[in-house]
Structure formats: structure tokens, C-alpha cells
């Protein structure tokens, strides 16, 4: 006995001290280290903080859509910095060109994750407890509840109670039948919609899961881009990619060396509309026919299309771009081949006016570098110079200038599409103007000063492939779908308590066992504008199962 009282008084004093703390904020400095931590934790996990963090997250994401972002288009960032010399460096310093990997953005979402965990854990505990909690007691007077109904039914009280039980069962309510002292059932207390809270918890938990899955994908995933002229192939090794982005935990030596050969590229362009339409010449379809091969496996012929990737070694290969790779042969004055290769040119606009460079390091005494345009449908206007007027090969031509000198002045890596002309001089034509070569397929053009000749053999297309490994992708998708399920549960279910009481109807003073007075009452947790409708439906279903009112 004493033990029990002791415990009780201890509990009371604990409660009292808790109340005291809440009521006297002036005592906060006395909280001590752990007390402060607890206080901070409470603040961080309060609903109000979650609300502010959400709003701040929304505001913080906006600059990422206004300013060019390095991870999307670094050229635009460079241009922006060149155009805005005063504000640009400041924006750069504060991470405005890398918003989504900046420390301040990370701080916001990390705080949100902590706040989320802080709200999920105690709520889960509470939910588990609620699952075992008994069904609430019957209130004495149902007409004091927020909603109540009353009606008389032509059936015995027991039949009505039976009907009410089957309706509640169909609605998946938990319920308890209360009996009188003599053991006659007379009332039902029911509770439903507890899955609403479960759904809400599922939603918030899945949000955390999705964030973790995305982070995991970033850490161990990688993404390589490579341009492959039709007729050629590539093997997936780190050095073969034109660009390769790897997560911090990726060991690039361990990539599975599968290989893909691009047999041919089919591209169609819109030509069925007037040439003034903005849609004229827009791409309509890209298909790359490829042969894919895993190490130690037989090669397999397949296609890669837009919206239709190739799956190989848990890695996906996407067709994201296309263009022309003129096959060019450069010979020296003696006719020896110095260079013979498909050289990809990069399209600059919808009509595939493409730029590129042909570097001939084997030329002597000076190295040679051609640069200029490839035009699939060439047109020469006095105002715009050489341009292409349609993206297909209707009138293909290479328009090139020529430099001689040192192609790689400091030995550092450079773009294959441009020449570094620091240590080169431009070759002039016989008229003293910079040399301009116009070469059509099959033509060979002689270079001045006994530099040799250049031939345009053919114009195959190239395929721009993006190779991606992201193991976090599917977990993130499943997490998101589960979150959606939880959200729908928490938005559609209503947590309600319903009570049904029956009594023999008094007809002109005489209790009549064949007529029953039913009283039902209900209340909801939180906002529930449809509670009245719910009660009406319940009553209607009971009536329908028992007979006439």
C-alpha cells in the first residue's frame, strides 16, 4: 500500500514541477545543459517551427529558379558573371549559382528533417498507445454532443442494435456494446478513423525516407555523357566519357565496362507545316539502333529512343541529343593521311547550324587546326553569313577557317569543339583575307602554302548518350507513392466517435417492444464538416436494415 502512495505522490510532485516550469519562463536559465537541449528540441519540433521552416524552404528555393545554376548550365553562369561585374561575385560568394547544394539551403532542409523526426517519433508512440486504448465511455446525454439525431423505428431494440453493429462493422469502426445491469444490450460506443493518424504518420515518415533515398542516390550514383558518331562505339570506363559526374562514394575504377556500338541514328524533323511556323524543322523522332554488350556476354541488338532508355548493368543509357559528325580526311602535301575521323559538331540552334573544330596535331612543321561551321542545309546571306535553314541534310557544307601553330599551348585539357588560338596564327588566302574553305561531301579542297588538302568524305550523325547509375531512384519513387497513400488516408478519413442508444418507444405512455427510440450522437477530432452527413447516413443505414421508421 505504502509503495503505491509513494509512487503517486512522486508522480504528483513531478507533475507539479512540470507545471511550474511551464508557468515561469523567467526560470529558463536554470534549465542546465540538458534542459536547454530539451527546450531547443521542443522548439525545433513544434508545429510552428515546421510551418516556418516550410515557408523558408519555399522562399529559399526561388533564387535557384531565377539565377542560372552551375549544375544545369555553367556557360550561362559564366556569361552572367561577365555581364554583372559588381553583383555577380557577391551572388557567387553566397551560393546563388549553386542554390541547391549551398550550405544555407542544406541547413533548412536538414532542420526540416530533424523537425520531422522529432514530430514523427513521439506521435508514433502516441499512436501505438492509442491503438490499445479502450473505447471511450458512453456519454450520459447524447444531445450534448456536437451532433445528435433521434428517431423511432418499427423494430425491436435488439434488432436495431444488431443492425447498428453490422453498419459500424461495415464502416470498420471499433465498438463496444454496453449492457444494463441485467445483461441486456442497450448501447454501442464506437470509434473510427484511427487510420487517419496512421496515414499522416506514414506520409511524414515517407517524406524522410524519400529525402534519404535521394541523398543516397547522390552519394553513390554517377552520370556520364558521351557523344558517339554512328558506326562507332564506346566502352563505359571513366576516361571514355566526355564528362563524368560522380557521387562522393563512387570508385570510378569499378565501373562495369559494358560497351555500346551505335549502328545508326534515325532522326525526323517537322516539314509538314509552313516554313514560317515556329514548329517547322522541330525534331519529331530520334531513334538510335545500337548493339550493347556486357563483358563475357553475347552482344544484343536493340534501340534507344527518347523516353525509352536502355537498361544495362543496373545503369540506364538515355539518348538525349544528336547532331552531325562530318567524316574528314586531312592529307599533307605528299598525300599522306594526317587525320581521318568522324568529328562531332555541336548544334547551336534548331536548324543545326553546328560549330566544331578539327585538330591535326600530326601536321608538320606546324600543327593545324580547322574551326568553323557545319551546315546541314547551307545558305549564305550577306547579313548573317553562313547559316543552316533546315536541320536535315538537304544541302550540307562545311565552312572552315584554318590556324597553324601550337594546338595545346599549356598541355592542359581543352574542349574538343573549340581551338585555343593563343599560340596559333590564322592562315590567309591568296587574296590576303583570312582563308575560308567551303567543302561539300565528296569534295577535296587544296590548302594554300603546300599545307596539303582536306576532304569531306561523308556526314554520319552522332548520338549524345547520357549514362546514369542512381540506386536511390526506385526507393525514392516507392517512398513518394507510399507518402501519397498516407496523404490520401489522412485527408479522407475522419477520426470520429459515435454512440448509439436504444430504448423501447413509449407509445401513449405504454412501452412498446416493437418500436424503438434510437438516439445517436457523434463527435470528431479536429475539423469535420461532414459529421452531420455521417450521422444522417448512419441513421439511414440502420433504418434500411431494420424496416420502416
Amino acid at each position: 500500500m505504502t509503495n503505491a502512495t509513494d509512487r503517486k505522490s512522486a508522480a504528483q510532485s513531478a507533475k507539479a514541477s512540470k507545471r511550474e516550469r511551464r508557468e515561469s519562463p523567467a526560470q529558463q536559465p536554470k534549465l542546465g545543459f540538458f534542459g536547454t537541449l530539451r527546450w531547443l528540441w521542443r522548439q525545433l519540433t513544434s508545429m510552428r517551427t515546421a510551418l516556418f521552416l516550410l515557408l523558408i524552404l519555399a522562399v529559399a528555393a526561388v533564387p535557384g529558379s531565377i539565377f542560372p545554376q552551375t549544375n544545369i548550365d555553367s556557360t550561362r553562369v559564366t556569361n552572367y558573371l561577365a555581364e554583372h561585374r559588381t553583383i555577380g561575385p557577391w551572388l557567387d560568394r553566397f551560393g546563388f549559382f549553386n542554390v541547391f547544394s549551398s550550405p544555407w539551403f542544406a541547413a533548412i532542409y536538414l532542420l526540416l528533417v530533424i523537425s520531422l523526426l522529432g514530430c514523427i517519433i513521439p506521435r508514433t508512440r502516441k499512436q501505438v498507445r492509442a491503438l490499445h486504448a479502450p473505447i471511450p465511455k458512453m456519454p450520459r446525454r447524447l444531445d450534448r454532443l456536437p451532433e445528435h439525431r433521434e428517431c423511432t423505428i418499427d423494430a425491436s431494440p435488439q434488432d436495431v442494435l444488431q443492425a447498428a453493429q453490422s453498419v459500424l462493422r461495415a464502416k470498420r469502426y471499433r465498438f463496444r456494446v454496453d449492457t444494463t445491469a441485467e445483461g441486456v444490450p442497450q448501447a454501442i460506443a464506437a470509434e473510427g478513423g484511427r487510420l487517419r493518424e496512421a496515414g499522416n504518420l506514414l506520409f511524414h515518415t515517407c517524406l524522410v525516407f524519400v529525402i534519404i533515398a535521394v541523398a543516397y542516390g547522390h552519394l553513390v550514383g554517377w552520370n556520364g555523357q558521351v557523344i558517339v558518331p554512328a558506326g562507332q562505339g564506346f566502352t563505359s570506363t571513366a576516361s571514355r566519357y566526355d564528362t563524368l559526374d560522380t557521387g562522393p562514394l563512387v570508385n570510378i575504377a569499378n565501373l562495369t565496362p559494358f560497351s555500346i556500338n551505335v549502328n545508326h541514328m534515325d532522326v525526323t524533323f517537322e516539314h509538314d507545316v509552313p516554313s514560317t511556323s515556329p514548329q517547322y524543322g522541330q525534331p519529331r523522332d530520334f531513334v538510335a539502333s545500337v548493339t550493347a554488350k556486357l563483358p563475357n556476354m553475347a552482344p544484343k541488338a536493340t534501340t534507344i529512343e527518347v523516353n525509352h532508355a536502355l537498361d544495362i548493368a543496373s545503369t540506364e543509357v538515355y539518348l538525349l541529343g544528336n547532331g552531325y559528325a562530318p567524316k574528314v580526311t586531312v592529307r599533307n602535301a605528299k598525300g599522306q593521311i594526317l587525320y581521318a575521323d568522324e568529328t562531332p559538331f555541336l548544334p547551336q540552334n534548331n536548324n543545326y547550324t553546328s560549330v566544331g573544330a578539327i585538330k591535326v596535331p600530326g601536321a608538320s612543321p606546324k600543327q593545324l587546326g580547322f574551326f568553323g561551321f557545319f551546315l546541314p542545309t547551307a545558305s549564305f546571306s550577306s547579313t548573317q553569313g553562313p547559316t543552316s535553314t533546315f536541320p536535315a541534310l538537304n544541302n550540307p557544307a562545311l565552312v572552315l577557317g584554318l590556324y597553324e601553330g601550337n594546338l595545346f599551348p599549356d598541355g592542359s585539357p581543352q574542349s574538343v569543339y573549340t581551338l585555343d588560338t593563343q599560340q596559333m596564327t590564322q592562315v590567309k588566302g591568296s587574296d590576303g583575307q583570312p582563308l575560308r574553305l567551303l567543302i561539300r561531301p565528296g569534295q577535296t579542297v587544296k590548302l594554300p602554302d603546300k599545307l596539303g588538302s582536306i576532304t569531306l568524305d561523308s556526314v554520319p550523325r552522332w548520338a549524345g548518350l547520357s549514362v546514369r547509375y542512381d540506386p536511390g531512384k526506385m526507393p525514392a519513387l516507392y517512398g513518394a507513392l507510399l507518402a501519397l497513400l498516407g496523404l490520401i488516408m489522412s485527408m479522407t478519413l475522419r477520426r470520429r466517435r459515435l454512440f448509439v442508444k436504444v430504448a423501447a418507444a413509449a407509445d401513449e405512455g405504454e412501452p412498446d417492444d416493437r418500436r424503438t427510440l434510437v438516439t445517436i450522437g457523434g463527435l470528431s477530432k479536429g475539423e469535420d464538416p461532414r459529421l452531420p452527413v455521417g450521422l444522417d447516413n448512419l441513421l439511414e443505414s440502420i433504418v434500411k436494415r431494420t424496416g420502416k421508421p
Partner: protein
Amino acid sequence: MITAATDHVANAALNTASIHFLWSSAAVLTLAMLAFGIDLAGFPARDARAKEREAERAKALENSAVAQKVATGAGGGTAVLDSAPRPANPAEGGDAEEKRKWAGIGMSLSWLGGLLLVANVVFRAWSVDRPPLANMYEFAAVGTMFVMVAFLGWSLRKDVRWLGLFVVAPVVLVEMLCAVVFYTAASSVLPSLKSPWLMIHVTVATLSIALFTIAFSLTILYFIQLWREEKDEEWQAEGGARFRFMDSMPKSDVLDRTSYGVIILAFPLWTFTLIAGSIWAQKAWGSYWTWDPKEVWTLVIWVVYAAYLHARLTAGWTGKKAAYIALAGFACILVNYMIVNVFFVGMHSYSGM
């Protein structure tokens, strides 16, 4: 190539028809707007007449109070409480409510205008031979169609004639924008847009934007109603209420709850939009999330409406403060649609403008 050419002519004819439907719909809905306006403006007079009748009926009821008691006693005593001053039995109390002729005309015209809008979308789809959801023009037309469908569907279940003006007016505005500013010639789409996910993603996005638009109208009405309720005493003191026609609409708390109800419906749809968009991005661009401006704004909208839902559950943030967040959410939708599509550089820049 001859077949292609004739196809082209046929498609052009279909497309022209679809534009005619758009213009007719805008004209019809403008008339609907006027009718709803007249209906609202007529409210004070209607209300005065109703009060008169009410007074008369009260007198009559007093006279027959005894008879009334007997009647309800026999009725079994189902206690359905109703706050609206309505006669206990329409057969007894005479006309329950005056027929609102102009509101009826407004609804009929809305049905016609809505039907014409559906015809616009169907003919456009037929002329381009794909779901018409590939550029801003098509997107806006389908969006307004969803707004009308949602409103008309709702009107079958509830008397929402008071909302008519505030749904039809933005619809007409967007239709005019469609016809004059956004218009894009019919044509096939870029390869990356050829995907069932496009249809799913954009259809659901459009549907939820339609719902968010209705919720926005309700929120605006909520603010006006709240302002009137706050000013009411002051105005009474100055000699009578103003903006009496607004009395024909629900009270501010009902408007607040209704707009919350619509947002609750739209939010999961927007969540789905986000997921379906990521799936499509994964298929088309090889990455489900690239922080493209359009993606960023879709996320921002989602986060702002999540904040709204939280605000409604947070003490001290209910009512006005939460409603401000809902307005901010809709502002983000407008930015996403009007500004991001046209001015921001990203992978989604295929608006056709």
C-alpha cells in the same frame, strides 16, 4: 504526300472549328457573368421581400400555432436542426424562396459555355491527334475546362449559384488570354513530349490548378466577407450596411472551410503531379530531378500549400493568416504558369511562345 496534304487541310478545319468554339464559349460565359452579376445585385431587394414574407408568415403561424404542434407531434419528432429560416413545411408556408431568374439564366449559360469549352478541347485534340496538353494555349484551355466541369459538377450537388460570378469571370479572362496571347498553331510535339506520362502528369496538374483556382476565388470572397463582418457595426452606425448583395453568400467561416475543403482535394492531386512529373523527367531526360525552374516552382507550390495545411492546425495561425498563405500559394501557381514558362530558361521551355 497527297494524303498528308489533305490531312493537313482537314486538321486545319478542325482547328479552326475549335477556335470558334473557344470564342463562342467566351461570349456565352461573358453573358453568364452578367446574369450572375444581376442576380447578386438583386439580392438586397430579394432579401427585403423575403423578410416581409417572413413577417407575414410569422403572423400566420402564430394564428395556427396549435395546429402546428399537433402536426409535428404526429411526425415522429426527428430533430433535424436547421439554422436557415425555412418554413417547417413548404406546402404550408407558401413559397420557400423567391425564384432567382437571373441566377438560373447564369447557370444555363454556364452549362452552354462549359459545353462549348469542352468542344474546343475535343476539336483541338482531334486536329492535332494527341492529348491537347503540349503548350500554354492548350494547357490553359484544358485548365479552364476543368474549372467549369468542377463548378458545374458541384452545382449538381449543392446550390453554389452565389459562386458563379467568381468562377466564370476568371474563366472568361483566361479564355481571352488563350485566344489572343497564348494561341499556338496546331502541330505535333517534340519527341520528349511523346509519353503517356505527359498526359497523366499534365492532366492531373491542370485539374489541381483548376481546383486551386476555385479555392482562390473562395479565399478572396472570404476576405471580402470577413472585412464586411468586421466593418458591419461601423457601417450600421453610419447608417446602414453596404455591399448588401454579399449577404447572399455564405458567412466568412463557411467560405474559409469550403476553400480548405477544396485545397484538401487539390493537394494530393498536386502531390501526384510532382511524382508523375519526376517519373516523366526520368524517362525523358534521364534524371528525375534536375532543379529545372519549372520543377523548382512545382515544389515551391507544394511546400506553400503544405504550409497552409499546417497553419490551419497551428494555434494562432487559423483564419486570416492561413488564408494569406493560400493566396501566396496561388500567386506561386500564377508565377509558375505565366512567368516561368515564358521567361525562365530551362528544359520546360517548349511553351510554344
